[in-house]
Every structure is written in structure tokens, then in C-alpha cells.
């Protein structure tokens, strides 16, 4: 979700006019608009599933996000002067700009003690993940269902899930995988 901003708007006196105007509405004479937020700006920490929705969904839904919160005074200020259709686009996208979601997991290849780290959120499907890992570790990683002609220099990709079990990568939908993966391991095909 976006930021919750508390902005103090100083209220000036509306006493300057000489006529005895009966100002029946409560608008102060001319209050300067909110300047850059001085008080604390707190950003709600969202869970991964929200980040996923933000990062992966076509249209960011606001199911788990509280609406962009501003004081009524700010909203009635209508400043800066940008079209409401543009403003609503920006508010929806604020979290994209302030922090792009990332999910770095450890990746080990069998037989190599030093592991690597990889940002899963930089990929949108298994396809891309497998290709990147293939480049990273200079090997060919097979899809779960394919049979190698000879089990030479081929590997398969496995992952440890939230329950501590080691599973073959590729069986569940991508988003579900992102939710459950803790780390990755590339093992030799003839071992599985």
C-alpha cells in the first residue's frame, strides 16, 4: 500500500477584510496548501502475497490495501492541479515506485559448496527462471517431465518449501511457487 501522510495545515486568521462579512462556511480565508510532509511517514509492511499481487497482477487490486489515506483537508485542497484520472493512476502505483518487490533466495548446485542468490521476482515464469539459472551455473536444467537421451550433464531444479520438504520445481502455478519457495537446489538428473 502507499504512504500514510500526516500533514499539518496551519490555519490563518480570516480577519483581514474590512467589511463585516458573515462567513457562514468554515473555510479559512486563505490557508497555504500542505507543504512537504513534516511529520512521520509510515509505510505499512505488507506480506508477500500482497507484494505478489502488486508485482504480478495486471490491475493492482486494493483488496488487502487500505485506500490511500489523506486528511479531508488535503482532498478538498485539490493541489497540485493534476487531472483526477492521472491522480488515481499514480495513487495506485505508488508502491511500485517506492519499493519494487524482490524475493532473493539462495541457490546451490550439487557438488559446489558456495551458493548464489537470485531474485525470483525478476522473473514471470518458470521458463525465465530456468534459463537464468542455466546461464548462472552453466548447465542445462530439464523440465520435470522430459527424459534426457543420456543422463550426462543435465540437472533438475528442486526447491525447499515452507514445510521443509524438497520438491521438484514446475508442478504448481508460478505464483503459488513464489509463495512457498524458501531456497533452490540444482541436482543431477540421474539422481532423481
Amino acid at each position, binding site marked *: 500500500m502507499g504512504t500514510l501522510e500526516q500533514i499539518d495545515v496551519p490555519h490563518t486568521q480570516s480577519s483581514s477584510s474590512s467589511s463585516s462579512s458573515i462567513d457562514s462556511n468554515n*473555510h479559512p480565508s*486563505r490557508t497555504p496548501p500542505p507543504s*512537504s510532509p513534516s511529520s512521520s511517514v509510515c509505510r505499512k509492511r505488507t506480506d508477500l502475497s500482497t507484494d505478489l499481487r502488486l508485482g504480478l497482477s495486471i490491475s493492482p487490486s486494493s483488496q488487502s490495501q487500505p485506500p490511500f489515506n489523506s486528511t479531508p483537508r488535503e482532498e478538498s485542497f*485539490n493541489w497540485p492541479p493534476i487531472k*483526477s484520472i492521472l491522480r488515481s*493512476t499514480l495513487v495506485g502505483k505508488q508502491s511500485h*515506485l517506492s519499493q519494487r518487490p524482490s524475493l532473493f533466495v539462495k541457490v546451490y548446485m550439487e557438488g559446489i559448496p558456495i551458493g548464489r542468490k537470485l531474485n525470483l521476482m525478476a522473473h*514471470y515464469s518458470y521458463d525465465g527462471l530456468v534459463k*537464468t539459472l542455466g546461464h548462472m551455473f552453466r548447465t542445462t536444467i530439464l523440465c520435470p517431465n522430459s527424459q534426457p537421451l543420456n543422463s550426462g550433464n543435465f540437472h533438475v531444479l528442486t526447491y525447499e518449501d515452507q514445510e521443509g520438504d524438497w520438491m521438484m520445481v514446475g508442478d504448481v502455478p508460478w505464483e503459488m511457487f513464489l509463495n512457498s519457495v524458501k531456497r533452490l537446489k540444482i541436482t543431477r538428473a540421474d539422481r532423481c
Partner: protein
Amino acid sequence: MMNYFPDEVIEHIFDYVVSHRDRNALSLVCKSWYRIERCTRQRVFIGNCYSITPERLIQRFPGLKSLTLKGKPHFADFSLVPYGWGGFVYPWIEALAKRRVGLEELRLKRMVVSDESLELLSRSFTNFKSLVLVSCEGFTTDGLAAVAANCRYLRELDLQENEVEDHKGQWLSCFPDSCTSLVSLNFACLKGEVSLGALERLVARSPNLKSLKLNRSVPLDALQRILTRAPQLADLGIGSLVHDPESEAYIKLKNTILKCKSITSLSGLLEVAPHCLAAIYPICPNLTSLNLSYAAGIQGSDLIKLIRHCVKLQRLWIMDCIGDKGLGVVAQTCTDLQELRVFPSVPFGNPAANVTEVGLVAISMGCPKLHSLLYFCHQMTNAALITVAKNCPNFIRFRLCILDATKPDPDTMQPLDEGFGAIVQSCRRLRRLSLSGQLTDQVFLYIGMYAEKLEMLSIAFAGDSDKGMLYVLNGCKKLRKLEIRDCPFGDMALLTDVGKYETMRSLWMSSCEVTVGACKLLAKKMPRLNVEIFNENEQEDCSLEDGQRVEKMYLYRTLAGKRKDAPEYVWTL
């Protein structure tokens, strides 16, 4: 001498006179020119839909083919005009239909367009070719379905920044198979999904399609298929550019784009995965227009990478996350730049997404052809404005918006009077100006003195006294639209030169010091002005006392008298 020519000859000569102002001038020469002009006039522009009645328009111009109408005041864009104010297009369409006007083109801005009016439009004008709706509201995709289904020779359906309710009725599928005439289709502002199959088939049977702007629901693979069917496109709006950069679909798109040699204008990128931007690098060197104002998903560094390829750019709309550094790159790369708009990426300001006077000065040094500017920034200095004025004397439109609206020059803590003064003094062709920052009456003195061609002025949180407004009203002879909010201008300024308002299209004043009594007096003195006061108080029984301050006032010249469709909160005095 001209009076000895037969009418047909004069008509033929008039064919070459195209602009509205020139045609208006022709009609004033003599009675026979007035007659010939009105019978041959095909295009009419009405800047305020309440300035004249539809009947009167049709009476004068029976041969009308193209009509442009504008409704709500400009500040409606920023939610300053309450809901229901007006600007309904239905009575216009009804009148045109009734009189069997051969309407072919309708362009509307800030009007309320109902589905009913779209349906009536689609059924009433057999040769209807072009519908352009900008910042309108009130319609749904059902109305669009009617237009698609019934306008047999439709060439243009251009929806720009409208609020459209989505009814999931597959409006795009309503274009019949016989419709092959489309030249321009823009539905980028629609929020809902469209039938991708129908879209692809429509594109495939529209050989003249030059401009296509998709909404965010059109995914990358569909874009690729569409582009293969429309290699002749000159103007493209991408909806979604999200895909795995290693995937087949993405690679296919990259190859397809290489064949799109005609694209000179690009917009949209409403949903974008940064790695995918590389796909559009090949078309960047051909671009003259790039609109990324809705591409909120692109970071500054990626914007900069993109811009480096855009050497021919003349128009750039971008978000401020490009930063001052990025604007420096624009200045180096886009030396032909004529129009620049920099929008705030976070409405209330984010120090990380920062453009300041530095970026603007860089642009002014690198882009001498710049004539139109809209610039949202964190701060501005007098020195910078003076430099910009010197580097770019050709400004026609200069709109500056400092996010902290009353911020002075941060270096000197002075108001920005001198800076804007330099702008108006140097830019003799200036037609439109928006001010912001800390400003005293002095800036208005400069504007009155130097801005001889100024037609539209927007002021907010500026000035010290009535003198400010008077400098402008007295000095700017060509002023047509004046809009003021939150300034200390009151009755004296309003009433000093009442005749001035008949030379202008409209005046807006909100949160100023004007009273009800003064507005009443003005309305009484000037019967050909409509003076509207918006009374948004909840209490029903509040009567307007003369001494009461007016929260919002909108006045405009009119030949139509008091309008009959005003909502309850609008009091026409």
C-alpha cells in the same frame, strides 16, 4: 472589387480560408460576405457550450459538418467544479438531429455525454465519421457499442482521459464486419477488458488504420499479433508490456516491432515490466512524440535509457522520476524538442523523485525550439527563470507548478516575481501562462505590462491586493480566460472594469475575497454575462446575503441567457 464577383467565385476563395478566426473575420466585412460565409461554413468551434443555443448555431450555419464544443470550466479537471454542474451534450445532438444537419465530426471537451446521446448520435447522422471525447464523463461502454454498431463510415473514435463506466458488453465486437474505414481508434482510458479476437479482426480489416491506442487489458502477445496486422501504424499506444523477457512471445514482439518503421508517436505503457522496454528501443529513433505520463511503472534510470534513443523527439510527456539528471539527458538528446510536460509521480511530493530548476535550465539550454511547457517541480528560482527566458524566447505556453504552492526562491527567499517577469518580457508570443510559487502584486504588474498576446492566465495562491488583478485586466488586451483560486482579489478588482468581461470567454474565481453583493451588481450591470455562484452549503434555507464571501464564482459571456439546466447549488444572478 470583390463585390463584382459572382458568389461562386467568392465561395471558392473562402474555401482557402480555414481557421475559425479568419472565417469569423470574413463574416464581419459586409452583409453578402456574411451570407456567403455562413452558408459555406463547415467547421464551427464553440469554446463555451452555454454561450449560444444549438438552434441559433444551426440557423446560422446550416451546412455544418464539424462541431467542437467545450463544457465545464478548466478547473473542473482538478475537482473544483462540483458534480452535476452542467455541460450536457444531449440537447445539442437532439437539435442537430432534428434539423437534419449533416454532421460528420463531433469533438467534445469536458462535457457530460450520456449513453442516450451517443445512441442518438449514432442513429441520426448517416455520414458520421469522427468522434473525439476529451475529459468527458457520463457514458458507459454501452454508448460506445452503439457508436461502433451504427456509424457505418466511422473513421475516428478517440477517447482521451474520459471517465467511462465499464459494462462488460463487448463493445468492440459491435463493429460490423463491413466496417473497414477506421483510421484512428483510441480506448486507452477504458478500464475493462475488450475482446482480443474482435480487436485483432478489426485491425486486420482496417487498412487505413494509422492510430491505435490500447488500454491496459491488452497483453503483450495480443499486441504482437496486432502489430503484424498493422505495420502501417504511425501512432501507437501500448497497453501492457509485461512478459518474461526470455519468453517466445516477447522475442516475437521484438521482431515484429523491428518491422514497424512508420511509428512516429508512442504512448501508454500503462503496465510495464522494465526489462521489456528494450523491445521498443528500435522505434525510438523515429519517434517525434512520446507520452509516458501514465507509465508509472518505469523508474528514472529506465526512462533515461529509453530517452537516449529518441533523437528526433519534438513532444515529450514524462513523469518527474526522470529527475534533473534525466532532463539533462533529454536536453542533450532531444535537440528538436518543442513541447515538454513533466508530471509529478507522487502527488504530494517525494524528494527522491525530484525535478527542480536545474532540470528546466538544462532543457532551456539544449532545446532552443521549446515553445510549450508544463512543469511540475519542487522548487524554482528567479535566476533559473531569467536564464530560461533568455534561452527560450519562443514560448507560447508556459505553465509552471511548484508542488509547494507558495514556495519562494529557495536561494534568495524572494518571491518569484522577477523570474516570471523575465518570462513575459522575453516571450512576446506568450499565449498561455500558469503561475505558482510565492508571488506578489508585482508579477501582475509585469504581466499587464508585457504579456500583450496573453489569452489564458491561471493564478493560485498569489498576489497581495486587488491591484494585482487590475493590472492584468487592464493590461492584457487579448485575455480570454482568467482563472483564479485562493487569491486576495475582491470586489474592487471585480467591478472596476465590468465591460472587460464581454471581451473574454470566462472568468473563474474561487476562494477569493469577492462577495455576493458585488456579483449581484455585476450581473445587473452586464445582462449578457451569466454570473454563476456555487453555493455548496448543506443548509437549504440559507439565503445569500450581500456581504457574504463567495466560495466559487464562474462568469461567462453568453447570447443564450440564463441556462435552464443548472443544478440547485448554482445560482445564476
